Each structure stands twice: as structure tokens, then as C-alpha cells.
């Protein structure tokens, strides 16, 4: 029966395929175009005369002697100190993911196992906190951080990002732990384990699917953040995204613009690869809470 329902007429299949192709063009083409253009010089990628120059590399050939060039990459990674920014992003991302998962699993486990009413209020407060625009929080940080003299350094930013990330992590892991049968850790408690031991030896081995999903979202937040990193770090400690913005700030004198283009490629490529591997977890995380039939 299922077979007949899901059998589509030829017209539907054709219309559908055209639409999907059209949509994929819109969603993917800008990235392919940027990737292609990052190997050209500015006069080609932003070509006033003729956009086909970007394809043929007309000016690139004149300026560098070949139709593709790694000039922008080489310069941004050396002169532009993009390598340093990459290093900073890695430090921030790895720290944020590990710390926020550590805090989040403990908290979410407690929330999912406690039967008291206050768990509900904690979750509601977390929901409210999650909705706060990051920029309003940053406006609250700056003054105290200046006074305490902790502005501009990586550890401050890491802690801030961990905190901003907690509400979402808590909710995600809370709904995950709810699906882990209570009987598992209850039997351990009856056998004389403490709650912490039950968590360590019974829950931890089975929690990895949920943790991977939560970790993926923490990673995306830390890796992609602009608001917090641009305002809480000094220029020297910039991560990749504010660094790209800084290249744009010093605009218009020739090469720097292409630094931004090549850096965008350098910054998005690893992200896309990670998402390619963890696509299923990403989707399950996005739909947690939304779809309950």
C-alpha cells in the first residue's frame, strides 16, 4: 500500500527535481563562487568590466602569470596573521566544548532525575537566558571586565561563551537524559552506588550520542561567534571571524580585500567538513523539542 501512495507521477518528479536543483543552486553556489574567486586577484573577483574575468582569470594572468594564485592565502596567513587567529579559534572552540559539556552533563543529569518542582523553574529560567541577545550581555560585561582588568584575553572569552552556551546545552541534554531509562541508574543506587558513582559508571557509558549532539552545537557557537569575540578580545587575540571583519575594516587598498575572501574559505572549509560527518546529530539536535508528533 505504502508503495502506491509514495509513487509519484512523472510530472511531479520532474517539477520536483527542477525545484531541488534550483534550491541547491541558491544555497550552495555562493560558497562555490567564493572558493573559486579566492584563487583570483581582486580585479577579477570584483570585476567592473566583465564578470567573466572571474572565470577566466584575465587579470590574475596579467598580475601573477597564472590563472590561479595562492597569493591571498599566503599573504593572509603570514602578513595577516590568520594562522594566529586560527590557533585562537582552536583554543577557544576546544575549551568551550569540553567545559560546557562537563558542566552541562552534570546539570542536565540532575535536572532529569530530580522530581522536585524547582527543576521546572530552572529550565524556564534557562529558556529565558537563551533568548537574551548576546550583544546585550556583552554590554553588561565590558564595564566590569575593564575594572577587573580581565578584558581582551582568551580565558575570559572562553568562560563567557561557556555560560552563554549553557542554557541550550542544558535543554538538549535534559531531553536526552529523559530518554535514558531511569531503571538503569536506580538499580545502581539500590546496589549502593552514590549518585555520582551512578552517573560515572552507568550514565556516562551510554550518554555519548546526546553528548556528541550537544558538543556539535557548542562547537558551532564557539567557532562562529562574532559578537562576543569581537568586543571582548583585543586585536592580538582575535579569533577567525572578528579577524575577517578586521581585514574588511582596513578596506579598499587592494590586497586586503582578497585576504578576507581567502580567509572566509579557510574558516568555512573545516566547519563544513565537520558538519558533513556529524550531519545526523545536528539534525536530531535541531528537532529536539520541536517535533513531538
Amino acid at each position, binding site marked *: 500500500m505504502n508503495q502506491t501512495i509514495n509513487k509519484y507521477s512523472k510530472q511531479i518528479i520532474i517539477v520536483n527535481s527542477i525545484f531541488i536543483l534550483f534550491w541547491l543552486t541558491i544555497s550552495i553556489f555562493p*560558497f562555490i563562487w567564493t572558493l573559486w574567486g579566492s584563487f583570483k586577484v581582486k580585479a577579477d573577483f570584483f570585476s567592473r568590466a566583465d564578470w567573466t574575468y572571474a572565470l577566466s582569470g584575465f587579470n590574475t594572468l596579467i598580475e601573477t602569470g597564472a590563472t590561479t594564485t595562492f597569493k591571498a592565502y599566503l599573504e593572509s596567513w603570514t602578513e595577516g596573521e590568520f594562522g594566529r587567529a586560527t590557533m585562537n579559534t582552536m583554543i577557544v572552540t576546544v575549551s568551550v566544548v569540553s567545559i560546557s559539556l562537563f558542566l552541562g552533563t552534570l546539570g542536565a543529569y540532575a535536572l532529569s532525575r530530580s522530581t522536585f518542582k524547582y527543576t521546572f523553574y*530552572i529550565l524556564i529560567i534557562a529558556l*529565558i537566558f537563551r533568548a537574551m541577545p548576546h550583544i546585550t550581555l*556583552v554590554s553588561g560585561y565590558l564595564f566590569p571586565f575593564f575594572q577587573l582588568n580581565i578584558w581582551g584575553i582568551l580565558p575570559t572569552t572562553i568562560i563567557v561563551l561557556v555560560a552563554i552556551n549553557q542554557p541550550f546545552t*542544558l535543554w538538549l541534554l535534559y531531553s536526552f537524559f529523559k530518554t535514558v531509562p531511569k531503571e538503569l541508574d536506580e538499580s545502581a543506587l539500590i546496589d549502593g552506588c552514590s549518585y555520582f558513582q551512578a552517573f560515572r559508571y552507568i550514565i556516562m557509558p551510554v550518554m555519548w550520542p546526546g553528548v556528541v549532539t550537544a558538543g556539535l552545537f557548542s562547537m558551532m557557537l564557539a567557532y562562529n561567534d562574532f559578537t562576543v569575540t569581537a568586543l571582548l578580545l583585543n586585536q592580538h587575540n582575535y579569533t577567525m571571524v572578528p579577524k575577517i571583519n578586521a581585514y574588511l575594516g582596513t578596506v579598499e587598498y587592494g590586497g586586503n580585500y582578497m585576504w578576507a575572501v581567502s580567509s572566509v574559505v579557510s574558516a568555512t572549509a573545516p566547519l563544513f567538513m565537520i558538519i558533513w560527518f556529524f550531519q545526523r546529530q545536528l539534525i536530531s539536535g*535541531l528537532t529536539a523539542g520541536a517535533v513531538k*508528533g
Partner: protein
Amino acid sequence: MPHRTFFWFILPTALAMILFIGLPIVSSFFQSLHIENEQVLMEVENCDPFGCTTNVRVDVEATEKIEAENPLGRFNGFGTYTDRNHLAFDEIREAWDNKSSIGEFKDIVLNLPFYKALLFTLTFCFAVTPPVIVLGFIVALSVNTLAKSLKGLIVFGTILPMIVTPLIGSLVLFWMIDSQGIIGASIQILFDDPNLSLKASSNLTWITLIIYGIWHNTPFAFVVFYAALQTVPQDPLEAAYIDGATRFERVRFIVIPHLYPVATFIMLICLMDNFRVFEPIIGFSAEGVAQSLSWMIYQDLRNENKMLFGSAGATSMLTILGIAFLLTPVLIRTWKEFKTER
């Protein structure tokens, strides 16, 4: 779980949230009640052979002393909230008293920085959300009909605009739409107008930003709809099929009603996320014609001479008020869900 154990488990995460989300909001509010110190002026008499002149200049030493004693500035109550850059009560009253027509009054009010930003923020929110829901639904329906082997690849391609940070996403589009980029240049040739560019008019810039918003948000709607489509019950679909319903009718009368709750969820999340629109404005270099509330805060904090903590704090509080307004339905929904779970 006993209270004691619960407390130790929840302590680290609660501490992080209180210190770095709760307190900053309080701190922001506190800052908004203060305003920057005034500079101390002093008169200096300059005498030369032709006589004496008195100049007024800033007494740097005295100013620094006040600054050191009162780094937050002086207390201003709710003065910052009502000043020209925020709610601008005086200016509105004056415009109302002197108005010759409602249109003129509207023009004056919408040119005040705060209302200008509010107008853009709300326009962006409400222009982006409906197309996102419709487009997300259509994409989800079509991906759902594809062969299984293709799905993974196409889902990946579809979610790319959502994965990149808004700043990078908007830059990537901006470089194409820019008058020297592939799309911008083609449009100029198409309309035979070498001056046509997105910076040429504020309307065009707004439309570009809204198109960007749709591009960025549709994948989220797609993913949620796509997951929800897997939960549509098969029996009613089968029954409708036997009764001779066409595919369109089955979608219209069975699938769409099933997805209503999901659609409201997407709408609320979308509205809330877009209310903080900020990075695309920077990516598209659209500061000149499109300002949002978040952008105003950023600008105050980026101020070259002195960070305007008071002004940023006041705008933050007003933004949070707006978010609270949008958040209420979400909270009510969560509340109900929780009640039914117990």
C-alpha cells in the same frame, strides 16, 4: 534525587549562568542609569604683547580625577531612556505639537535613531519569517520525495547557509551582489543602468538584507519540517488515497494540519532570532541605511572616543523588553507541555 546531591550537580552550570548571564543583565541595567562624566572645563588666560584672551579648555587632570573616582559616570536615573537617542519623549511631543499632518509626524518620529532602528528590526523580523516557513515547508516536501540514496547529500547542501555564521554568510552574498560582483554586474547590464547598485537606495538595501535573512533561516525551517514530516501518520494518508484524494489534497488536508504546531514553533524561534539581527548589517556594510537595535548597542560600545555604557545599557534594556514580548508565547507553550508531561 535529594536536594543536597541536586545542588552539587547543578552548582557549576548554575554559577556560570548566574555570573555571566544573570549578572550582566543587572549590570547593564545599572549602567543604563548612569551617564558619562562631564568634562571639567577651565578658563585659561593667554597673555601676549597684544593683550590677554581667555580660552575655555578641558581640564584634563580634573577630568581624569573625576573619572577615577566615578568610573561608571554620574547618576542619571531614567534620563538616558528618554533622551534623543532612545525613546525621545521630548522630540516626539514637540513633533506632535508642531505637526501639520500625520505623515510629517511619522517622518520625524521614524528619523529618530531608536525608532528608525526599531522599524528596521521589526520589518526584518516580519518580512523574513513568513517566506522562511513557506519555503522551508516546500523544500522539506520535495526533499522528502527523493530517493533515499540522494537525501543525505541534498540535506547537507540545503543546510549550508545555516551553518556559517551570519557575518560570513552575508559577506559571501555581498561579494556576489556588490555592483562589481557577478550578480550585481549582471543586473546592471540587464537593466542597462550602470549606477544601479544595492547601495543606491535604502529600499534596495532593505530588500537585500531580507533576502539574505530568508536564505539564512530557511534551512532551519526545512530541518524541523523535514523531521516532522517523518511523523505524519500513514493511515489517514492511505485512507485519503483510497477515497481518491489527489496528492495536493492529501498535503493540504492531512499533512499541513499535522504540522501546525511545528510551524508555530518555527515562527516563534525565527521571530526571536531575527529580532537580534546585527551581523548582516556589518557584512553588507549597510550601516548607512539600515540600523537595528543590536547594531545600535554595538555602535555605542565601539565608539571611538569613549564607550557609551549608559546608552548601550539603555538600548539593551529596551531590546530585552522586546524579546520578553516575543518570548511570552514560547514560555506559555513550554509551561503547558510541562504540565501535560507530569
